[in-house]
Each structure stands twice: as structure tokens, then as C-alpha cells.
């Protein structure tokens, strides 16, 4: 039998919020570990910072900033949905969150390259 169809905007916003949250939760320990190298092993930190100049890493950073931004904007939409009076254009807000995140992450990428 056919699978239950989920490809409507608010479900996609839901899954994007979950997946970006999981990805950020996995990234943050690594991020803090790299920062801790400034205190413990400065040479190793410089080596890792050198790696961030590689094009592939810059592309990954673009993805990371997108995930961070879309998680933040999507989270603000959910807080507004749950705490403020009901706003009908939820699909538009979800699209705006994704669009805003793309804008922020693209601006980051343009500055990085």
C-alpha cells in the first residue's frame, strides 16, 4: 500500500528543525573541543584553523551556518506559534525561516571565499 504522504510545508519544516537540531548537537562538542585547544595545544589549533581554508570545509561551514540559522528561525516561529495569538500564514513563516537561513548562510559563504 502507498505510504502516508508527508511532503507538505509544515511537515518539512518539522523534519528540518529536528535534523538541524541533531546535526548541531553532534557538531557542538567538536566545536568546543577545537576551541579548548587554544588553552591546551595552540599548535594543533593552528593546524585545524588551516584546514578551514580548504574549499570543501568552507562549503561544509556554509551548510553548518544554514542549519544553525534555520534552527534558530524555525525555533522562533514555533515559539511565536505557541505563545502569541494564532497567525494563519504558518507556511509562509516556515518558508521565511528557510529563506532567511539561506540568506544568512550565503552571506557567510560570500565573506568566507
Amino acid at each position, binding site marked *: 500500500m502507498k505510504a502516508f504522504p508527508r511532503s507538505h510545508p509544515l511537515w518539512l519544516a518539522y523534519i528540518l528543525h529536528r535534523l538541524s537540531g541533531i546535526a548541531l548537537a553532534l557538531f557542538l562538542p567538536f566545536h568546543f573541543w577545537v576551541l579548548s585547544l587554544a588553552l591546551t595545544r595552540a599548535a594543533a589549533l593552528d593546524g585545524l584553523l588551516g584546514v578551514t581554508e580548504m574549499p570543501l570545509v568552507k562549503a561544509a561551514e556554509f551548510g553548518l551556518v544554514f542549519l544553525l540559522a534555520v534552527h534558530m528561525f524555525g525555533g522562533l516561529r514555533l515559539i511565536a506559534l505557541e505563545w502569541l495569538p494564532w497567525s494563519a500564514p*504558518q507556511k509562509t513563516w516556515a518558508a521565511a525561516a528557510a529563506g532567511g537561513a539561506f540568506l544568512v548562510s550565503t552571506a557567510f559563504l560570500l565573506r568566507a571565499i
Partner: protein
Amino acid sequence: MAEVLQQDPMRVTVLRGGPGAPMRPETFEVPLYESQTVLDVVSWIQQNSDPTLSYRFACRVGMCGSCAMMVNGVPRWTCRTHVQKVLVGGAIEVGPLRNLPVIKDLAVDMDPFFDKWVEAEGRHHPTRTRDDGIAPIDPESADRQQATAGIECINCSVCYAACDTVAGNPDYLGPAALQRAWTLYNDEKNADRGSILDAVSGKGGCHFCHSMGSCTIYCPNELNPLAAIAGLKSATARRFFGRRDR
């Protein structure tokens, strides 16, 4: 009966089975008529091909909420779903509603669905007795507008079948029960808002909703359980931070 639209019959795959009999698809050939509904198709199969096919319906006009089924994977009220709008390549698939135990074939056990209406305190708490006069209600008041928004629910369980949170959490009260709670919460003739908020803020309550919105997308009466659940979340938060209920 209306005229047969084409020579080739449509192929209707029905998911059949129940407790003790694994669910299996069975395909029937059914003549295609003008203005035919999916419920007409299921009835045709039961009356002409296999009288042992089990399904449920009552009013046939979208009022009773009995005939909801999965049609091509989508929960729908079958009495108001035209075959012409869901036919894909001359075929349709019909199955029992998702998220509810199957009794047999297309008939599901609605008990868990209705039990959760009771759990969500979806019952009236009167402000007056039968000896008192009828309380005047302003139909334009903000509370009444909120209550009116959800009053046309026909208990069809389409939203319950559409909800992935229900699928993943058997304790979750579900969109219909929570919307009923929100309707009563806003009813000025309801005396006990606090017990409603108690019922919907516990295990399986409104805070488990992930705001996917499938309930609102698929509600056949175009109601908005997502907004109702958001209203309950807001009301429980207001109470948590010290705002008194009526």
C-alpha cells in the same frame, strides 16, 4: 444508478485482514460511474464481489464521521471523496485508518480515539442547573469565536490517522481530543477551565504536539486542530506563569 463512464473497470486494491489474519491486499475490478464516491466503490465490492468485506458507514453525506479510510495512503472521508479525484492510472488503494487497531478489513476500533476525548476532559462542566435560565452568549465575543471554530468536528478520526505524533506515542491524546478540549475551554457555559488544562498538560498532552500540521491539512471539515493545540499550549503557559483561569 448513473451511467458507466468507460468500458474498462477500475482496479481497486483493498487492504484486508485483522487480528489473527495478517493484512493483505486484494484487488477488485469495479465499474466506474459518474459522481461515484470511494464509499460507493467499497459498497459495490461488498454487494457485488465479496459480501464478507467489512467496512463502516452511516450517513453517506459527511455528517456522521463513520466512513473514514486511507485512500491512496491519505486519510479521507470516503463518502465525500469522488473517485475521479483520487484515481491514479485507473486504480485506487483503500485501507483501514492509520493509528487505530483493525477489527476487520476496513473497520477499525475507534475506542482509543474516543477514550482520549474523555481523557482530554472533553465533556461539559455546566455553570447552571436545568432549573436556571439559559445564559446569554454573545456570538461575536472572542471566546465564542474560538469555540465556534472547532465545533463542527464530526469525530471521523482523519486527523488522528494523519498525525505522526500519534503514530510514535500511543499516549498522545491526538488532534481531535485536544481541539475538543480547546473548544470547551473557550465555551462561556463551561465552568471548569482548570480541569481541562490539567487534563491536556499531562502525559500525552498538548505539549507533545510537534506542530507538523498534518491534522489541519487533512481535516475534511477544514478545521484547524493545529491552532487549537497552539491555543492550549499558550493557555497552559499563561497559567504556569500565574495568570488565573476563569
